[in-house]
């Protein structure tokens, strides 16, 4: 509860709403004791006095009655009626909902059918019909507005009750011999009550508006009694000659409804912080870049990554996902990037084309050069021209990475038409050829399929075809086979390998699976806590790992037919990247660690093979 209020008052707009509402409620409660004139005393000599007239702060209306006094009394009436309607609708609706939800079965079905029918009406028709039957009048308007809102409560509360009624504590109560009425009152109601209260408080504004509306139409409060709606309705006749008589009650309704809306939004945000408009941020078109200097190129790869640093800024916390990664990829080469989840391998890969979700992602340093052109901080137009054209991506889960509402053919041709001006016919021809390239049977029929109509392996082939669409120089494959089952995995890997050899395209293959690296990659880089800890030709690293982490990671891979070998899990967890330790990040989990492992900066040593360790398992040479 304390947390709730803390959250609520951190929201400045909700605070303003609360204050405005509190002032209005206080004024209304004090109305009987305030030194006001009688709201019903007419003075035909003082008709339509303007605001700020002596003795009449807000002026007078068509019958010379004091507007300030009428406003406060009218607000009092409107608030009371709105409140009463909300309580009445809330109580009746909740009772119906609880009964339906608790009883279940045929009773539930019958009640909810009826509720659905009531909800099939545009709400005001039902209200008008009820007023027509009962006759105009404030009480009848209240009944109509309350009745119209009963289905809303009934449906909401029923949903919650159904969820609760199947829970253990209700069963326990039933087994203990309690009657239905007692179970509902002592077990169910306390759990549903907060929801009812919140729903009521958020609908009060709506109820006030609706009763005011009926009064405005002349169907609610009848003279001389006046709520805000009927004040506005009566003032309409003189709207042009004396606009203030309309403005005064109108602005009051507006203030009440707005403050309740603000407060209601605040309450909702405080109760469910995930829904808070601020918490849901959308990634921008390209990752934000904030780097101080551009490092020298350390190699001459087609794709040359130098000292890349990427972070996530969440509130005041800084998560250092990538800490100075350098990697060089030659044309036609396949480099594996391997590590546990959270080691920074995907962030490294996404940084290349500025695809790290931002906010919260920020590239804080380093360079990524494609054929000597630095892409970090390149203008959006340049990045867009290269994306999918020179550097293409294949992502992990093909179901969530393909657009669910577009036909795969359209998604495929779009990859081409985003970079080349060609006719629809030509695009289709090329799409067909691409599908044949990735060995999709019956490609013409597949073009018009939606992603959900294809199997997982088929979808990933579409993903690969999309990456191949513009014959890129580099393909970055981010765990493209993780979501697939083993046989399909093998097919997709064989396909990638074949394409690489035929089209001479460089591949950066991100995975956590050493088996795949061994099959596919010329070289491999092992990442841990945002850094490369070992790098070298695949066979050498696999057969003779130098870094203790690599050795333990390889030891984790089960071997087919390996028998009852015990799989040694690595003890402990990777460090949280918002509080990286000094020295080697793996030291706390390492059995070779000595005190000097946790000190200073440990560099990457070696040239052909590199390792970031002061007590390596094997010597890597200079």
């Amino acid at each position, binding site marked *: 509860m304390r947390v709730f209020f803390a959250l609520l008052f951190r929201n400045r707009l909700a605070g303003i709403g609360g204050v405005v509402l509190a002032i209005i409620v206080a004024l209304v409660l004090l109305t009987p004791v305030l030194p006001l004139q009688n709201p019903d005393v007419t003075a035909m000599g003082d008709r339509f006095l303007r605001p700020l007239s002596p003795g009449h702060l807000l002026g007078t209306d068509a019958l010379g009655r004091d507007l300030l006094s009428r406003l406060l009394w009218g607000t009092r009436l409107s608030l009371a009626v709105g409140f009463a309607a909300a309580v009445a609708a809330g109580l009746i609706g909740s009772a119906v909902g609880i009964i339906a939800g608790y009883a279940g079965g045929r009773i539930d079905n019958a009640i909810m059918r009826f509720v659905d029918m009531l909800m099939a009406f545009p709400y005001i*028709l039902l209200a*008008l*019909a009820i007023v027509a*039957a*009962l006759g105009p009048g404030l009480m009848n308007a209240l009944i109509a507005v309350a009745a119209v809102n009963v289905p809303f409560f009934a449906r909401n509360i029923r949903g919650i009750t159904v969820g609760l009624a199947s829970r253990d504590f209700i069963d326990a109560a039933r087994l203990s011999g309690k009657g239905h009425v007692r179970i509902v009152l002592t077990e169910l109601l306390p759990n549903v009550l907060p929801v009812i209260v919140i729903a009521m408080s958020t609908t009060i504004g709506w109820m006030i508006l609706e009763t005011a509306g009926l009064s405005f139409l002349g*169907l609610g409060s009848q003279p001389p009694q006046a709520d805000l709606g009927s004040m506005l309705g009566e003032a*309409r006749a003189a709207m042009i000659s004396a606009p203030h008589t309309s403005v005064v009650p109108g602005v009051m309704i507006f203030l009440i409804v707005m403050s309740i809306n603000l407060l209601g939004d605040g309450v909702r945000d405080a109760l469910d912080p995930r829904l808070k408009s601020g918490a849901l941020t959308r990634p921008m*078109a390209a990752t934000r870049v904030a780097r101080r200097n551009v490092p020298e190129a350390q190699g001459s790869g087609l794709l040359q990554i130098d000292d890349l640093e990427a972070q996530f800024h969440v509130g005041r916390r800084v998560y250092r996902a990538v800490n100075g990664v350098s990697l060089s990829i030659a044309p036609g080469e396949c480099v594996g990037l391997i590590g546990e989840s959270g080691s920074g391998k995907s962030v490294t890969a996404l940084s290349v084309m500025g695809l790290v979700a931002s906010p919260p992602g920020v590239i804080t340093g380093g360079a990524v050069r494609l054929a000597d052109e630095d892409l970090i901080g390149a203008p959006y137009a340049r990045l867009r021209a290269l994306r999918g054209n020179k550097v293409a991506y294949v992502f992990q889960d093909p179901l969530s*990475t393909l657009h669910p*509402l577009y036909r795969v053919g359209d998604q495929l041709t779009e990859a081409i038409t985003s970079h080349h001006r060609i006719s629809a016919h030509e695009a289709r021809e090329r799409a067909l050829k691409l599908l044949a390239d990735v060995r999709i049977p019956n490609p013409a029929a597949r073009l018009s399929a939606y992603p959900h109509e294809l199997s997982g392996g088929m979808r990933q082939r579409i993903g690969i075809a999309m990456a191949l669409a513009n014959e890129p120089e580099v393909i970055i494959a981010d765990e493209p086979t993780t979501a697939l089952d083993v046989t399909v995995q093998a097919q997709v890997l064989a396909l990638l390998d074949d394409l690489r050899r035929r089209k001479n395209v460089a591949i950066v293959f991100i995975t956590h699976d050493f088996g795949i690296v061994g099959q596919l990659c010329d070289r491999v880089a092992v990442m841990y806590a945002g850094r490369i800890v070992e790098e070298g030709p695949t066979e050498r690293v696999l057969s003779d790992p130098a870094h203790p982490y690599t050795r333990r990671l390889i030891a984790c891979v089960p071997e087919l037919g390996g028998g009852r070998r015990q799989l040694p899990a690595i003890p402990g967890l990777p460090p949280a990247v918002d509080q990286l330790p000094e020295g080697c990040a793996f030291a706390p989990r390492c059995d070779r660690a000595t005190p000097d492992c946790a000190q200073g900066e440990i560099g990457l040593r070696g040239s052909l093979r590199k390792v970031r360790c002061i007590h390596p398992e094997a010597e890597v040479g200079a």
Partner: protein
Amino acid sequence: MGRYILRRLISAVPVLLGITVIVFLIMAMIPGDPAAAILGSYATPDNVARLNRELGLEGPLWQRYLLWLWHLLHGDLGRSYALNRPVLDEVLERFSATLVLAGASFILCAVFGILAGVVSAARQYGFADKAITFVVLIGISVPAFFLGMMMILLFAVDLRWLPVSGMYAIYGGGDLMDLLRHLIMPATALAAVATGVIARLTRGAMLEVLRQDYIRTARAKGVHERRVIWGHALRAAMVSVIPVLGIQAGFVLSGAVYIETVFQWPGIGRMLVDAILKRDIVLVQGGVVFVAACYVLFNIAVDVAQSLLDPRIKT
């Protein structure tokens, strides 16, 4: 698709029947003798009895309902005694005026609501987002009837840009231009709240969609950001926006009752209010059933639109 529409239509039959029952029961709650109410206090008992027979008000409740339903199914909604003409004629005439108003308003709120929501989401926390959020907050808080009155004061009385009220000019006019000039203010006032609600919802849906993996895929393909936002993201967001459009159409139709009063638009809302004040129960009954039935059919159209948009819905 045709079969899906047919199935939805058939499933609407019980709802439509339910509507007739509910309306009939509410009207049956009226205390006292409707015939006496129609004929006034000078009626002779003979006259009252005869009118009761004519109105089908004799016999038990279920019998009266079935008789009423029978006439209803034959397109006979009864006769308005206050207007002395068949209810159906009056309802059709008035409803067509409401359709013009509510239809224009619905288009306004759908177009501007979605537009504002998308811009707001695409420029989250930017100036446009803040400005739109602020305007939306005011839009959803101001009562439509008050907004209408203030618009009349500003645009019709002060600036004299637009006519004060009505659907056509009394002298001359009567053409489409004239109708549009009369339509602008009431349609805008009526659309305000719904526009705000739709904008808010669209913004939320867009923010949710823009985080999805397939948006990253589109960007990775090199699709232009404009197309990512207005194509890929909006298309997916529409799946959650369209049902709300259906609900908001109901609110627009409801709000028309107030707006028709403020702008003296000769629509069915104003007709219902007048009929209630004149105790013309037959007219109220017929009008309510007619509009409710139209609304049910409209919602089926919304469902069909949804199934066209989202191939994952089984049709």
